[in-house]
């Protein structure tokens, strides 16, 4: 919802040029995300919700990792790690951990999934975990 509200506020500055109007909000859900609100069904429902609320049916809220209209196959966390490695993105600087401490714990569900993804991708995990 806030992503959409941000998009509407950005559109304030555009003057009649539809090419620059923001009507797409991307999230980064991946196939292995376990929550019901991380599914493609949820994203589709949110898209309808937004279109109906704003009375503009060109809005699209989706994740390029799981939307079959954007990619022929789903892009999992391991593929993302591999892609980042190949494109020299310092992925060890990203934050996955749920804890409030500076160092990532390495133990929470999110850290575990992160570790598994590195392992599956065959990429050395340079993240500094506290455990």
């Amino acid at each position, binding site marked *: *919802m*806030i992503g*959409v*509200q*941000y998009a*509407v*506020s950005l*559109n*304030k*500055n*555009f003057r009649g040029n539809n090419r620059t109007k923001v009507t797409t909000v991307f999230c980064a859900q991946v196939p292995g995300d376990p*929550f*019901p*609100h991380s*599914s493609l*069904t*949820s994203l589709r*429902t*949110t898209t*309808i*919700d*937004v279109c*109906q*609320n*704003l*009375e503009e049916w060109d809005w699209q809220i989706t994740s390029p990792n799981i939307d079959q209209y954007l990619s022929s196959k789903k892009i999992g966390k391991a593929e993302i790690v591999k892609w980042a490695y190949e494109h020299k993105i310092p992925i060890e600087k990203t934050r996955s951990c749920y804890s409030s401490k500076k160092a990532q714990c390495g133990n929470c569900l999110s850290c575990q999934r992160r570790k598994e993804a590195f392992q599956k991708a065959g990429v050395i995990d340079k993240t500094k975990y506290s455990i």
Partner: protein
Amino acid sequence: MKRHPLQIYNNREEDPALLKKIEEILLYRRGYLFNPPFKEDVILLASGGLDSSVTIDLIIREWNVRVHPLFIKRSARATPFEEKAFDYFINFYQKRFPNNLKKPYKIEVEIPPVKLKQYKRTNQLSVLGHPMRNAALQNVAAQYAAKLEATKGINIKTILTSTVADDSFPHSCLLALRVENLAICIDTGNWKMQITSPLIDNQLPDRPYFKKDLILYAEKYKIPLEKTRSCIEGAPNPDGTCNECLGRLRAFASAGRQDPIIYPYQIK
């Protein structure tokens, strides 16, 4: 949808074909659209306005529900005055229905965030309202439901708003409520959740209710409408000229009643 002679029903997005499709998904998944929550706990989003202040009375009489009122301080200009009205009616109904009105809950959430209130359309607020406003309010209510279950063991599956049939924004119609209902069911994984307005839900008899119907209801049950706050402006006294005040005045006129609030132009 029935029309009232003095109130043009103009909700452009109440699309019957789309409503049917959304309702088919809910029916496919759980077999019903809305079951009245007789003697259950419900959350009511209340603002101190005319509609929600009357709805408290209506749902308690009709369903004998236990109402958990939720007031969201959403950083609107009129929020302090809405809160004062909300407090008045909590006190009023705690005396009238001591067993049904539960402890109110207030939470401060900017909806929309103040920094994002910038719109290209100069008539955004009069035609469309704030983007995703009601959906965001209803999402907070769903989060409050989860908190009530976690902290007090109260199982809430019904979240009520007070959308009336003369509301004109796209986010204030049955279609918007059904879509939001669907979104909350999917997001929570709980298909028993129901988000609706008891004033317009087509699963209930004699609906929809218009604001003028609530005015007559309030008269019948002696609800002091002069204590409600409809005006969206930031002054203590309603100015009588904003869209909400005008809608209220039209509703009083169509009910054949005088608004008990004294407006500035009447003083002059």
